């Protein structure tokens, strides 16, 4: 009997080619556009209607069924709210990871299964083998960092058709098959806000007050900020700080090292040895592990960063050499070679 696959189609080239590949492999394919967000933001027109039309156009071309599933409420409750709450706590959350955990590989997965799917598929660059999440063939496109929290159950019913391919070949295949979105610009950063747009996005939802920027060592006020939530620990850019007379431009930049949200103060430092910037060990919470974890693992501190050897000791990741610490709320993801084991959220 032909097996049924529900493909999450975003209108982009990767999910379009995924649908194409599955159809050619003989599956009964249904395309689904997940409508998670449709609001325009200042300076950013939400492209959902165009994306939806692009996805549907491909589905029609392939002659497959196509549906729109409206997840806006759930996306707001599970992803947007989580994100805002974390920012309000002073953390820098990663909404993509939450979106995969709660929406794409939970709600979408469960709904598809209820509607008779044998598998779900997405256009992510990753592979699944024997219930394990593996890094994709195209290392430059590796998206396992964002997928580390998806459940074993969902994973065992997931196909990542482009995981075995190089992005370039995906594009070529799209072109060869007349899929117009071969040339579409890739969406960047957070699912619905560009990286640049995060501050504008937060401004829409979180009320902020201007406050002081202080040097952590001296408590001296060195500048002012327009809202502490907008600052990320470890951040160097975007600080409105001018060197004081007498020490005009010591040449050293300031880094955000601490945020006191109760008093609306952002602390900065020029000391790169501050443990909030460089750390030998990092404590995690909400650790999620799919497989058994060996003593010596490799970790990724950010999406597409190099894999660094480390040791997982309880809830703490220990490094042989100090690493530049990501902001709290971000994830550290564990690997054993090509296997993505899981990960945790930085405290």
């Amino acid at each position, binding site marked *: 009997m032909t097996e049924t696959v529900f493909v999450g189609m975003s209108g982009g080239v990767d999910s379009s080619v995924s649908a194409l590949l599955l159809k050619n492999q003989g599956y009964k394919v249904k395309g689904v556009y997940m409508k998670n967000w449709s609001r325009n933001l200042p300076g950013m027109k939400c492209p959902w209607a*165009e994306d939806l039309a692009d996805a549907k156009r491909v589905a029609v071309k392939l002659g497959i069924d*196509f549906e729109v599933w409206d997840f806006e409420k759930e996306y707001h409750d599970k992803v947007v709210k989580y994100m805002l709450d974390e920012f309000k706590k002073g953390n820098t959350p990663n909404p993509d990871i939450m979106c995969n955990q709660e929406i794409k590989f939970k709600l979408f997965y469960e709904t598809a299964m209820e509607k008779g799917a044998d598998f779900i598929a997405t256009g992510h660059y990753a592979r699944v083998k024997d219930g394990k999440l593996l890094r994709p063939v195209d290392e430059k496109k590796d998206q396992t960092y964002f997928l580390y929290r998806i459940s074993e159950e969902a994973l065992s019913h997931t196909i990542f058709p482009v995981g075995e391919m190089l992005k370039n070949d995906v594009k070529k295949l799209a072109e060869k098959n007349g899929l117009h979105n071969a040339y579409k610009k890739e969406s960047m950063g957070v699912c619905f806000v560009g990286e640049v747009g995060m501050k504008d996005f937060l401004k829409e939802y979180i009320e902020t007050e201007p406050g002081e920027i202080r040097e952590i060592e001296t408590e001296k006020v060195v500048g002012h900020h327009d809202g502490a939530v907008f600052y990320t620990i470890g951040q160097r850019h975007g600080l409105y700080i001018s060197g004081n007379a007498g020490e005009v431009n010591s040449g050293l930049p300031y880094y955000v090292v601490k945020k006191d949200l109760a008093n609306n103060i952002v602390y900065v430092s020029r000391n790169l040895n501050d443990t909030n910037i460089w750390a030998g060990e990092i404590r995690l919470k909400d650790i999620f592990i799919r497989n058994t974890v060996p003593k010596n693992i490799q970790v990724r501190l950010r999406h597409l960063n190099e894999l660094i050897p480390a040791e997982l000791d309880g809830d703490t990741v220990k490094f042989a050499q100090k690493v530049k610490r990501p902001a709290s709320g971000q994830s550290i993801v564990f690997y054993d070679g090509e296997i993505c084991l899981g990960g945790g959220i930085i405290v």
Partner: protein
Amino acid sequence: MIYLDHAAATPVSKKVFEAMEPYFSHEFFNPSAAYLPAKKVSAEYEAAKGVIAHAIGAKSHDLVITAGATEANNLAFSFLNKEPVFSSSGLEKSEMSYAGQPAEPSPSETNLSVSSGIYIPDFSNHFIIQKIQVLYLSTEHDSVRKVAEKYGGAAIDVDRNGRILLDDLKAKITDDTRLISVALVNNELGTIQPLSEIAAIIRKVRLDRLSRGVKTPLYLHSDASQAMNLLNVNVARLGVDLLTLNAAKIYGPKGVGALYVSHEVKLKPLNYGGGQEMGLRSGTENVPGVMGFAKAVEEVTKHLNGNRKKYALWRKILLDELQGYELVNKKHTLDNFVVLCYNGIDAERLIFLLEDRGVYLSTGAACAASKGVKSHVLKAIGLSDSEIAGSLRITLGETNTEEQIHEAAKLINEAVKIERRRR
């Protein structure tokens, strides 16, 4: 390419383009400037306005040139009271349940429309009534609907063909009604409305108000954007006080429209500045745009009779050669509009299939299709959700040939077959 979406946009014809060209380059002067070359441009601009006005039986100074029909429609409403007019009501919230609404309306239901006004809960335990100043046809374009709702409006119902129900209009007119807005031709169906009959009703209401000493004026506005291709539009014969025109639908440039204003109506400007267009539409005149508009009007009126015959024939060819459809706009329609319903099929899929084969057309209004919002027009004429989803709009125009019409019918039939087979 076979373009079947002329109600969405028309190409600027060669003659129109040539008429505009000099005013982009060597005749670029600001009509308000003092020197002779500018005065010449000013005179030519007024003459062009005169051509447009003449075509609808009006004078140049009766027209306000705008940046398109949406702006003209907005301007037409500007004489109304900007702040919603309220009359307070002694009704307790709990008494509201007679209208079948919960005593505590949810935010989306705050505007609770009843025949005499719109009930809005105020800060105390009472409701206030927003007076209904405007009556508009339920099938109006958003550039009328959305504005009417802002000023306090109620919709007039239509029949299965999209024609106004005159009895419903009569029943909804109260002493608060100041404006009735009914498009001469509907943009999704091509339905032609009996404006002179509406005008007759309005005349009676005016006389009645006069006899009772009620001073509230009552005017008739019509958006005639889609009409001029096939209809003789004359303000006196239609009995309108305000009429919207649109260059972009008659092979003129986009972003140019006009509002005819009878001397009775005292409009207020939407924007302020140099006082152009009798102070009603400040901003340097769009000289090339108006030159193109005038040429487009001239051309379209010249070919009216020939076009009517041509489109009637093409419509017949389509209806004969297409298969397995239900015709939506059966009566009282412009012949260049053919609205088809393929029940059980997702018409948007047909559009993508046809796009691949070089045929361009739309479902309902173009803007509705792209946002996943169901057409309020098709809903208003009583189509079910699945009938709405299966509806295609073909609008014929000057880019077409008879050969194309046959070809289009063949390609649409094929696309429908592909979709039916897939089911």
